[in-house]
């Protein structure tokens, strides 16, 4: 799952760095709120732990062995935000010292394994274990399912990143310049082995470690409730903001519907379309102003790209830009509470 340099184009690498950066920033802020001094060795040691755990060979039923990633486990113990930093650090050591995972692709690797995995894993675990007792069977089961799903989704992200390359980056004669397989090959090729082997290893390790800790070391399972960051997080994420987030998610999922609708959005006609609509004349002002702002991505179509794909890509770029600007503005307007 560690993407080496050469599979992704530099542009994709830049996009993935941009995707991971807000998480790194927010994580470092969260960690700062909880006494920097205490978190530094805690995160460092857990980074070292996840580095070592990736070296464990786990025997599988049937005689083969596989490696675990351990992101879900670290997220369950430390909470997702601290896990973002701990696993990113482990990945940095692997990339810098052992050439395992690329340096340009570091952002992509972190996004898949240090952002997607801990968040998916942590919230599935929390959802399944709910308010159950510390010794309840729901916890190891929840952890195993969380490990399975989190690794599979991370693998899916990796497959999509690979699979998009041949559509986006081709030489003049049609030679794909980076990862050569399209989505229809990359997704099954990645998902098959992961769903059958790697995710099973992850589920086994995550579930059985939580079961073991239940028997011998319950305090470790309560670490997240002790860390004040969690309490703050719950206070900040009020039901109202949560509804907003859900709404945004629904809107984003619905966005591709625009591909199905014919024609132009009502009231967003350009000069030529007005003429087609049967309008005899074009208001002079409109004609004059029409060319004043050449859009960077006209008609949401990226040149040299399949129209639908270009549309989706523009949507993603748009959402990222809008979120970034909103976030920057909100940071300027709302003063941060003074740090402890």
């Amino acid at each position, binding site marked *: 799952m560690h993407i*080496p*340099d*050469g*599979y992704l184009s*530099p542009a994709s690498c830049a996009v993935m760095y941009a995707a991971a950066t807000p998480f790194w920033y927010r994580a*470092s802020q969260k960690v700062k709120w909880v006494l*920097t*001094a205490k978190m*530094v*060795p*805690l*995160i*460092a*040691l*857990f*980074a*070292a*732990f996840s*580095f*070592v*755990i990736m*070296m*464990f*060979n*786990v*025997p599988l039923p049937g005689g083969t*062995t596989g490696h675990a990633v351990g992101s879900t486990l670290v997220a369950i*113990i430390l909470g997702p935000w601290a896990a973002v*930093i*701990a696993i990113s*650090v482990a990945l*940095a*050591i692997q990339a*810098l*010292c*052992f*050439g*395992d995972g*690329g*340096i*340009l692709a570091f952002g992509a690797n972190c996004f898949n394994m240090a952002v997607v995995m801990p968040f998916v894993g942590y919230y599935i675990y929390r959802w399944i274990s709910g308010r159950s007792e510390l010794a309840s069977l729901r916890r190891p089961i929840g952890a195993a399912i969380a490990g399975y799903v989190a690794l599979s989704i991370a693998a899916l992200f990796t497959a999509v990143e690979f699979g998009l390359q041949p559509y986006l980056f081709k*030489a003049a*004669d049609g*030679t*794909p310049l*980076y*990862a*050569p*397989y399209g989505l229809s*090959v990359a997704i099954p090729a990645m998902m098959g082995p992961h769903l059958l082997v790697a995710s099973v290893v992850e589920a*086994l*390790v995550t579930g*059985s*470690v939580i079961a*073991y*800790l239940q028997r*011998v*070391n319950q305090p*470790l399972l309560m*670490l997240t409730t002790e860390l004040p960051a969690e309490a703050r997080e719950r206070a900040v994420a009020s039901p109202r903001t949560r509804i907003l987030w859900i709404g945004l998610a629904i809107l984003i999922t619905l966005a591709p519907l625009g591909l199905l609708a014919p024609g132009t959005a009502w009231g967003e006609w350009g000069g030529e379309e007005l003429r087609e609509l049967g309008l005899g004349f074009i208001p002079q002002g409109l004609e004059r102003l029409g060319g004043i702002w050449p859009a960077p991505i006209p008609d949401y179509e990226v040149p040299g790209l399949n129209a639908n794909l270009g549309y989706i890509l523009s949507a993603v770029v748009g959402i990222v830009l809008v979120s970034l600007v909103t976030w920057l503005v909100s940071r300027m307007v709302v003063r941060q509470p003074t740090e402890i």
Partner: protein
Amino acid sequence: MSARGGFIERSIADIAATLEEAIFSEELARKEGLLQNLDPRVKVITFLALLLAVSLSKGLLIIVALYFLTLLLAWRSRIPLGFFIKRVWLVIPFFTGLVALPALFNIFTPGEPIVTLWQSDRFHLAITMQGLRTATFLVLRVGVSVSLAVLSVLTTPWATLLKALRILHLPQVFILILGMAYRYAFLLLHTANSMFLARQSRTVGQMTSGENRRWIAASASTLLAKSYHLSQGVYLAMLSRGFQGEAQMLGTFRLKPSDWLWGGTLLALALLAVLMGT
């Protein structure tokens, strides 16, 4: 130790290989050579530029030329070339080669056929020009990128590399965590190694797969608990030495004329490669 071995033998072999690699790297990094003498900040910047050039290039020959540059630099840095080539190509690009293999054929990469392997009414199998090019691109890019990353690590002690990362404006606290994690990763590797050895030396006869999994879970949990307790101890030790949440680093670098010369040359070569490649 048999090549197949059990999961314990494999884990011990993996850990030993990692430790060996790290120790050998540190040894090479302390030799006298071209890259060892280069200012680490210059090295970080120039190697990033070279990586980018490999990644941006649309010409195979340019990637090959950059590989020869890497070999030249390795040779001037007194890195045994056989070791360097083997270390790079035997693992990651080899695996990439397997990944790239199917891309040779017209099933995955349609294009002009160069070698037709099977021709019948319903089925046609050929290696295409486009397929050959895309597979070569992938393997070369991965191999040369890994070569560059490995070369920079082989010629820079880890502690120095960390200090040099400051030039990328990483927050100090990240660098502190990175350094600490690296240091304790080795302690935990040794601990895990002892656990595996202890288990292996006490095992007589066969264990079932279920028993083995339970044991692995127990060792992973013990290691987790150890990491946590160790972090508490480290925190107290830092506190008692006056740590107040701000990371301080000793030592500053100073650029020598040779740093300017080599840094400029390598950057120019990277730029040239980008310009010629696109």
